[in-house]
């Protein structure tokens, strides 16, 4: 077994790299759960797709853990002083996995045609902010904006704006193109085999434009549906990397303590997810601000952080995560205070109506959390009934506003204009999107502040506006913020430089190597 593996590696290296000296092949086994439906990142941006496809596709930019833009397919860039013109210079000698050259035409096609049509997060940016995207020459792209839009520079990572090969997709029906099953990107890894239900096998792209990268030869993303089985698989050595959320939080400490196992909470700076309970503000007791404030005092958020999440994460103060820009701690603070909660709830005139709390179907920990919150609320006399559902049911109910309260967590995506405002502005009240303003919160002042902040080039002015928004929102409580989530990635310590960017494992294998 060892021998054949070795021989295979040798053959591969010798043939592809022209190396004469045989070198031990390095293989990494990573858990992926659930199995992604598709690896074509332009069409699917769910978590598992992003985790794998970020190593197949690339965006113009990458971000370090301080969320500063770094070169990726764009080698360098210039921004005009008025903040309206962005010029990107592309890397030279970049090839698609099928050998075709990557040019500025591909960028224009991706941003202006492909993503505009299919990417729900990119579409509002092109439609509302961008005047034109054009290829100046094969290695230069110019983007002209309608008005200044600072967040553009944080919106060009691989999941938000992946580069799509024009020669494959132009003129076809994007969603049914057979090439969707054999993704072609420019990234450091190529899809070798996808054994549905079992594993996804990526092999290193020998023509990768960054010399000497990637360093790991093969990655197997293994599908293991049960969390307990995943923990055992890591412990028995079947698995090398457990991306965030793969195992029960209580297993994190135990697994990290194993010999040769390391843990990091890094790599989630771009996402910086905040978990909250979205509240349906349209009718009933929940439409009353006082009642919601009572709920906020009733929920023991520290218990959630300390016990349910076993100490991971921080209790948030408001809509903007403390780890991202424009965070302002000077807001209304809600302590765990059942007596005050009872008082506020009594004040609101609550008469014991049943309130349905929809669980998030993402595993045991969310179940426990829902149970703890329900118990908190029952303790102050709020009649809560849990509703559980599978992913489809949760999506349906949340996006159809068929809930009283629902658990959710949303990514901050580097800038409040992209990741935060979407949950609070009234223009985003639309059925069909579980990640929009599902509660129906509508406040013209908030709308105006968010709009002004996104169109403002001056950072200080933006900060002022965001601070004001945070004050208003923490008073009105359109959602009940529960936790700034911290996401532990567990891996074998001999894998180095795995988490170096703001999206961690999602594009981390470009630079990772194994001792």
């Amino acid at each position, binding site marked *: 077994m060892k021998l054949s593996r070795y021989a295979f590696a040798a053959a591969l290296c010798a043939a592809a790299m022209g190396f004469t000296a045989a070198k031990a092949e390095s293989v990494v086994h990573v858990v992926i759960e659930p199995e992604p439906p598709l690896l074509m990142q332009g069409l699917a941006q769910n978590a598992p797709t992003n985790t794998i496809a970020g190593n197949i596709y690339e965006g113009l930019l990458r971000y370090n853990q301080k969320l500063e833009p770094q070169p990726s397919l764009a080698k360098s860039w210039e921004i005009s002083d008025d903040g309206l013109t962005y010029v990107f210079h592309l890397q030279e000698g970049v090839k698609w996995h099928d050998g075709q050259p990557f040019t500025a035409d591909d960028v224009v096609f991706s941003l202006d045609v492909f993503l505009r049509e299919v990417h729900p997060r990119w579409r509002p940016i092109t439609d509302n902010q961008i005047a034109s995207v054009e290829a100046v020459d094969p290695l230069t792209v110019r983007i002209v904006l309608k008005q200044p839009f600072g967040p553009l520079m944080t919106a060009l990572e691989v999941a938000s704006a992946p580069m799509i090969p024009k020669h494959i997709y132009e003129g076809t029906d994007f969603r049914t193109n057979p090439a969707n099953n054999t993704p072609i990107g420019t990234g450091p890894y190529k899809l070798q085999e996808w054994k549905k239900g079992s594993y996804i096998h990526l092999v290193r792209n020998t023509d990768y434009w960054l010399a000497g990268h990637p360093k790991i030869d093969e990655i197997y993303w293994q599908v293991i549906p049960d969390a307990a089985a995943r923990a055992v698989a890591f412990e028995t050595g079947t698995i090398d990397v457990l991306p965030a959320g793969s195992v029960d939080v209580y297993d994190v400490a135990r697994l990290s303590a194993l010999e040769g196992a390391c843990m990091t909470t890094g790599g989630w700076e771009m996402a910086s997810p905040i978990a909250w309970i979205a509240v349906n503000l349209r009718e009933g007791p929940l439409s009353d601000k006082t009642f919601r404030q009572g709920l906020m005092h009733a929920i023991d958020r520290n218990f959630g952080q300390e016990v*349910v999440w076993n100490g991971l994460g921080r209790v948030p103060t408001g809509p903007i995560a403390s780890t991202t820009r424009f965070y302002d701690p000077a807001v209304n603070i809600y302590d765990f205070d059942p007596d005050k909660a009872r008082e506020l709830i009594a004040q609101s005139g609550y008469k014991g109506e049943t309130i349905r709390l929809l669980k998030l179907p993402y595993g*045991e920990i969310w*179940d426990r959390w829902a*149970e703890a919150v329900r*118990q908190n609320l029952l303790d102050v006399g709020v009649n809560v009934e849990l509703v559980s559902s599978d992913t489809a049911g949760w999506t349906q109910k949340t996006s159809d506003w068929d809930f009283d309260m629902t658990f959710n967590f949303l990514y901050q995506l580097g800038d409040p204009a992209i990741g935060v405002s979407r949950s609070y502005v009234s223009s985003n009240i639309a059925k069909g999107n579980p990640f929009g303003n599902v509660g129906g919160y509508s406040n013209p002042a908030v709308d105006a502040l968010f709009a002004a902040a996104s169109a403002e080039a001056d950072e200080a002015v933006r900060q002022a506006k965001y601070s004001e928004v945070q004050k208003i929102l923490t008073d009105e409580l359109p959602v009940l913020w529960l936790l700034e989530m911290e996401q532990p990635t567990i891996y074998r310590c001999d894998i180095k430089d795995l988490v170096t960017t703001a999206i961690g494992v999602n594009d981390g294998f470009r630079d990772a190597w194994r001792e």
Partner: protein
Amino acid sequence: MIAFLKRFSRNPAAVVGLVILVLVVAFAILAPLLYPNSPWKPVQRPFLAPFAQAGFPMGTDTLGRDVAAGLVHGARVSLQIGVVSTIVALLIGVPLGAIAGYSGGWVDDLLMRFTEFFQTIPSFALAIVMVAILQPQLGSIILAIGVVSWPPVARLVRGEVLSLRSREYVQAAITIGQSTPRIIFSQILPNTIAPIIVIGSLMVGTAILLESSLSFLGLGDPNLMSWGYMVGAGRTRLLDSWWISFFPGIAIFLTVLALNLAGEGLNDALNPRLSRGRK
């Protein structure tokens, strides 16, 4: 009746089963007295081992809830699910089987084909789909378990009715001019009660197991603390906090075991003809 009790008590395993059942039912009934607080309420620090602290003989779970309280309250839920879903299955299966067996001919054919459909569709998969689509709630869980469990009942009842139908006393009932429904209800069904009770007792156990499997897949009623929920919720902690899922697991095991032992005892006691084989 006395002869029946005598025969039943001659089977020690059946008596043990009955005793366990009585205990479980007693716990279920006395739950609000034994543990007046909600079993969902965290009462101690999490992961307290059994007997580590007085008053918590079975320790606490991930949120610091008393496992013993959950167990006692869970007995109510699990028994309720087991019994009610069995009743649902019987309500579907008994009339269907009786009609098929008594009518014969194309009615029998049609009903048995229908039963065959339900036996051909993988039952657990069907239960999952039903619960998922109707939302995991007590009602949908009971319905799903009932719907996937009735075919054996229908077959059993049909077989019994088929054999009873040709019995001479049923023929006699026809000749004395009794109406068909009357014959079914007064002559046939009373004589199928024994096997129905036996299969019913076994089905209660299967239903409890089925509910635990649904819970494991996240398809339990989130507002009810059943044993299945407890085992499922504690399963990831088998290694370091075994007691969280062990005690409810044992409870399920003992109850199902007891139902089986009692059911078999019942079977033997009701069927003295068959038990002759046992010395």
